């Protein structure tokens, strides 16, 4: 492997409808958020270049309208993916039902793919004052009984607790995924 590298990777967002897939992308790529819900029609592809330890990765990010079951995800959407972000809505139990099975199915459908789970809309557990305060958001969430209970009810531990609204962990998540896609390549 070269000392520095510049590569392109396909990343797809998955999860039920209205969990915030499009919002996470638009936060990450355009630093924007809107409260309005417009379901994704057809397909949208975005791109952002990130830097990891001196390597550059062009993330080509695919977005479609959500599906409840992995079997409903069209094959052309998944093929050639190096990374998948599976988004759940922490305020709707139905979006993380059988999450463990779904992730397993995805890994079988796309061998070698890196999957991260994003527990989104975490901001909705906190009050305006809490969000405005200086305190660390994740710490506040960990002290929030309702949130902790929700987290405990998710069949598979999420990798990132996110909010497309406040930006919490959005950048971290994409960078983390880019990083693991790079390292899995070194191994392979």
């Amino acid at each position: 492997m070269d000392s520095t590298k510049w590569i392109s990777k396909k990343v797809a967002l998955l999860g039920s409808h209205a969990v915030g897939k499009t919002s996470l992308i638009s936060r990450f790529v355009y630093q924007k958020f809107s409260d309005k819900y417009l379901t994704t029609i057809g397909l949208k592809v975005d791109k952002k270049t990130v830097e990891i330890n001196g390597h550059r990765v062009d993330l080509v990010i695919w977005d479609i309208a959500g599906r409840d079951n992995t079997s409903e995800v069209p094959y052309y959407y998944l093929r050639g993916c190096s990374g998948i972000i599976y988004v759940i809505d922490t305020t709707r139990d139905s979006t993380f039902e059988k999450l463990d099975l779904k992730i397993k199915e995805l890994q079988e459908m796309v061998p070698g793919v890196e999957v991260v789970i994003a527990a989104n809309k975490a901001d909705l557990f906190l009050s305006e004052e809490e969000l405005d305060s200086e305190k660390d958001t994740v710490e506040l969430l960990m002290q929030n009984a309702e949130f902790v209970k929700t987290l405990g009810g998710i069949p598979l531990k999420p990798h990132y607790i996110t909010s497309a609204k406040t930006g919490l962990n959005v950048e971290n998540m994409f960078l983390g995924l880019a990083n693991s896609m790079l390292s899995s390549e070194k191994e392979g």
Partner: protein
Amino acid sequence: MATDHILQEPEKQKLEQLRILLFEEQIELQENMIVKIQALEEEISVPEKFEPHLEPHFEKHIEFLKANFPELFRNSLAKALEEQIAESNDTIINALYPIIGKMITRYIKAELEKLSQRIDDAQRDLFSIQNWKLRIKSFVTGIPYRELLMRDNLVVNMEEVFLIDNESGLLLGHHSFNNLMDPDMIAGMLTGIKGFVEHAFQQDAQDLETVEYEKYKIVINTFQNFYIASVVSGTISPDFKDHLDEEVLDFLKSVKLSSHMEVTASLQQEMSEKLKEHFHGFNQVDQ
């Protein structure tokens, strides 16, 4: 292309335009569907029964709805639409899959028919001096009148060439005559629409060979591990298509690309150079 490409506003607009145009039928159809779904949902409350009922029912009504849609529904629809999409999202999309692909092909066919219509109209315009000149030229040269008319009316221009990985839709190389949009995003979108149409047409074994938007046509040549998408403005004559096919085959001979390649900036650069070698003189030679 592997550059820090920050999209400018006009580029974003163009991209959004392309997206809307690619999915125009889908958006329109989705709107039509919602109205019917509301009615059907009342009749059929069992989901298993719901889907098989949907398709034949719609086929019949599509034409009617398309023709009468604005008058019938415009006012009452806007609000109901948003709510319905949110609620029956999956059902709508699943029901739409088999139909949308057909719609896209129909759209392309319709466009071709329109072109042919324009030519027929011109043909009927027998009194125009221009047309008499062409008729004489046709008689003298033996080139069919229709063909001459096409050549006369249409200027064809190669705008961009993309080399794209079949699997991932990642851009392998790109040559642009005037830098229209972000090539990485176009590559992804094209691969998506291609996959979408081919998926919808699985049974009919049809390939997506052209996509149209605005004054552009995208000609697609698919090979085993990658495909070449040429963006052309104007209407493609048989001559132009032949020339394009030749150049594409020539290009193929000069590259070796395997499946599951790592897509690096240096590969993209190498491929872009090759594309440039093969396609740069394209417009000059053709005209």
